[in-house]
């Protein structure tokens, strides 16, 4: 598949909005989910550290 130019690639034969709207949402979901995983992990570990500190106090 030869697109010729970036402009053609982004235009997607007139379907740019639909194609990039789909891939954009997929990308957004990926970023949100991975970020959410980091937040949850951070929160769990922080809770563990807090409990450990409480025990040793």
């Amino acid at each position, binding site marked *: 598949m030869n697109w010729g130019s970036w402009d053609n690639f982004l235009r997607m034969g007139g379907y740019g909005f639909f194609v990039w709207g789909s*891939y954009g949402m997929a990308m957004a*979901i990926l970023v949100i989910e991975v970020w959410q*995983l980091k937040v949850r*992990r951070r929160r769990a570990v922080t809770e563990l550290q807090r409990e450990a500190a409480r025990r040793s106090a």
Partner: protein
Amino acid sequence: MNTAASPRIGLFWFASPQTFFPLAGKMVPLFSLLAAGLLLVGLYIAFLVAPTDATQGESYRIIFIHVPAAWMSMFLYLVMAFWAAVGLVFNTRLSSMMATAIAPTGALMTFLALWTGAFWGRPTWGAYWVWDARLTSELILLFLYLGFIALQAAIDDPRRADKAGAVLALVGVVNVPIIYFSVQWWNTLHQGASVSITRAPSMATTMLWGMLVMALAFWMYSIAVVLHRLRSIILERERRTEWVRELLREGRIK
């Protein structure tokens, strides 16, 4: 209490959160790497190898995420219901945690399938949404995932939440074959079997390969994120056990 770590029951060896936690920790980077590699290859095929579709133009390129997302949405539901059932029958904590870990990813895959479907439906059918059997049953799947998540979040006792969620998940399983066969059982606007692109063989092959590689990428991604989430759930639920405290003391979780 910590006898679960002894390997005397074979099959149930990894059913212990304590033994599975480090194993999952090794699997997450492996599957993330596989997902990233397959995603790159899949996108390369999707945009640089696969040719323009004769009837749909470039809009068909949505297929490379729509179909994998739709497949994963159904497959993850079955896996979730399976582990929920195992947790219900054998009372294994880890199985129930696995079901809980799968639900958010399943819900996101379902949402993505619906979203990309809408963005594909508009240029091909002229409508973002129609109350068609395939679309409606997929929407019900999203509600089942959200219902499962909400139900478990509403119950304070984790073991009771596991059981209630398992019952809901199992009742909802009936929806998966309905989604899958909806295009045969009813007159739907949605096309039939996804791989039936009757065109020149070479073209169909690159499209098919692109779709399969992307499906595999979604699969590897799902395994990686579910296992990562599972590890957090284990830490949350097992925080009062000696082995978790030990890991923390040794500085192996931070």
